């Protein structure tokens, strides 16, 4: 008789513990697909920038006075979201609530400043393909900010309700990962629209 392979595992986690669990993988696939979406948006920018004659850039020297501090603000919100997660990890509700709360406030300020940034533009959605791309790309990002803010608000509420513990917190980790993604993808958008003109692209 051949030997029978039989899995006899010992002590397995029941349901999602730490970052284990299919939900964590699911968040990863969602982010991969969203990242691809932004890659195609930026592909469209570089493609149209490359095939159009000089003058396509409506802002050859983009004004950084609002955009740069706003970018720093968004990155800071990621740090606070991380602090919130670490508050859950160390059973510190005060830290968790502060982290999620401040991240939410900073994210909201970012969104409001972005609206002012839009208002300050001398061109509109239909001015040219550059303008269309600018508003649609930053608009897509804004939609992701809004979703991220809803997630941060939910994490705040669920922390108030004491739903999480250092072990049972995959929802927190997934939500915070999404917020990091929203911030990281902004760096690509920001670099494309605000920095590459200074590097010479499209000028």
């Amino acid at each position, binding site marked *: 008789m*051949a*030997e*029978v*392979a*039989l*899995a*006899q*595992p*010992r*002590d*397995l*986690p*029941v*349901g*999602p*513990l730490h970052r*284990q*669990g*299919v*939900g964590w*993988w*699911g968040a990863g*696939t*969602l982010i*991969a*697909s*969203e990242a*691809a*979406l932004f890659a*195609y*948006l930026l*592909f*469209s920018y570089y*493609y*149209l920038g490359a*095939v*159009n004659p000089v003058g*396509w850039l409506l802002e050859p020297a983009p004004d950084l006075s609002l955009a740069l501090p706003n970018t720093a603000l968004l990155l800071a919100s990621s740090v606070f979201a991380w602090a919130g997660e670490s508050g859950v990890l160390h059973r510190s509700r005060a830290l968790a609530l502060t982290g999620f709360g401040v991240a939410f406030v900073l994210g909201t300020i970012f969104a409001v400043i972005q609206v002012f940034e839009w208002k300050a533009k001398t061109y509109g*959605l*239909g*001015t*040219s*393909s*550059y*303008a*269309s*791309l600018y508003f*649609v790309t930053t608009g897509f990002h804004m939609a992701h900010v809004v979703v991220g803010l*809803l997630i941060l608000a*939910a994490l705040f509420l*669920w922390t108030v309700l004491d*739903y*999480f*513990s250092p*072990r*049972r917190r*995959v*929802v927190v980790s997934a939500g915070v990962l999404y917020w990091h993604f929203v911030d990281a993808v902004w760096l690509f958008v920001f670099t494309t629209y605000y920095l590459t003109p200074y590097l010479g692209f499209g000028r």
Partner: protein
Amino acid sequence: MKAPDYRTPRVGIDSAEHQAKLYRIWETAPGVKGFFTTVDHKVIGIRYIVTAFIFLALGGMEALVMRMQLARPNMALLTPDQYNQLFSTHGMTMIFLYASPILSGFSNYLWPLLLGSRDMAFPRLNALSYWIYLASGLFLYAGFLTGNGPNDGWFNYVPNASRPFNPGLNEDFYALGMVFLGISVTVGAANFIVTAFRTRAPGMSINRLPIMVWGTLTASVANLIVVPAVSLAFFMLWMDRQFGTHFFDAAGGGQALLWQHLFWIFGHPWVYAIVLPAMGMVSDGLPVFCRRPLVGYSLVALSTVATMILGFGVWVHHMFATGLPGLGLAFFSGASIAITLPSAVAVFAWIATIWHGRPVITTAFLFFSSMILLFVIGGVSGFMTASVPVDWQLTDTYFVVAHLHYVLIGINVFPVVGATYFWFPKMSGKFLDEKLGRWNFWTMFIGFNVAFLPMHLTGLLGMPRRVYTYNDYPGWATLNLLTSVGAFIFAVGVLLFFVNVLKSLRVGAKASANPWDGPTLEWSVPSPPPAYNFAVIPTVASRHPLWESRLEEGGTVSSLDRGLLLDQGKETIATSALDAQPDMILEMPEDSYAPVVLTAGLSVLFVGLLLRNWIAVGVGAVIVAGGILAWLWPSRELREREPEVAHG
């Protein structure tokens, strides 16, 4: 509920008492409630299959009307506009609403059974994926039925599709419908990826996966990455049409070619996404009828992945005639020629499997083996158009139409019908009628080749595609009549298939658990399988758990009737991604209204966008947001929160 964070799962043997307990845990509620809430992958899989076959029938009828119009020169059965809508809707239906969903259906039904699991990784997401597919299909067809079907081909090139040239609602239906459908494809792909990596039976390491799992996994990774390209393209088109943006119109600094790039960055990988899982069906089904394992398992698995990777870099071969720079054309031509190498690996593996096997000629075998021939014909004509100068001669002629039908019918429809003959006994507990099956096969096979083999010649004679009629040039009329006759014969064949399914469901011969003496796990459970699939989670020791005694590969053997009981709730096992070592007990969600509510919200939202009714858009958005929040609310049943006992 007092439950610890860790548990040692009990190991035991199957018993009637154990099965009764699992049945109570896993059964779907009867009636309307169960209909709308079920998350059982088998129910969802069959819904996918039935819906996709209905779309196949609709698309087929559209094709027959076109073939009547094209049977003779200068016919006036259809107006040019009707013809435009018909050929565009035919393409949209077959490619988006049949070819991909049918494979999702089979994979949904089969995966957990092939993998030794009790459900997909995300059962509710699975239900959502189906409901959105159905809703977006109805949305797209609502356009067609109100005279607003797509009318610029399934590829939908601008500027034809832009507002100045196409002021009706046609393109808005198509654009929004495709964005809607994209959600279904994306969440479905995410589900397949996580399922493949996380919910296999212990011991089913990555080198023991059935090839069909490799095929669908590869296709899903591709879909996850490329579907956003087409969703974005259609969204931009809708913005151009409704809000005056300038993505695609040259006057505002846009580019018509941007559409083609975004569309084919998606479109070409998509072609592989709708054939690789079907090739996997053949790789798993054909060997059963050759009474031996597939020749070259590892090569076939690796070439599946390699085909897809190369497939990301060939999209420009759809754009050879658009005036792109020669260097770019050379690169994409080279890549398109190189892709024949991994594609051919499977062909040789199948031929070698038949050669070295002892073939049992069944209807399923006929469909699987004839697919090899059709694949070679479709592959060679594709290889021809990979060459730039040849493509310049052939592009926009019926040669390309012949090629793509050999690919899509040859490598999708034939394997799918074969797979139905093969797995129907598992799904229904009944055999399909073999005698009717022979009629079914030969009618389809002869009809298909009569219709599409001469079409290569039609194309070589220069007849342009996408035009509603043609003049009586020498040879064109005869060839077109032949194609029309063949199309009707083929349609009769498909009809015989549907007749066989309906008849056999009622009076088919009863099938046992393993009617074909197959080697893989799905044949170790009853036909049809119970709601919980596996009473005990098996442990797998080889690629062919049911053939181990005769293959005498030595070493350890799989354990099928003794394994993890997992009966403390709706549970299955999660395993590590490569070696499939058990690493977690998964708590599976109960049946839920959330997917159908979310789909209803999305439907309201998309109808609102179509009609530019912002109140409806707002209502839809609120339903969607509420649905998602309720869905994601941390649930004690799923152990997403600390069990009370573990506090302090």
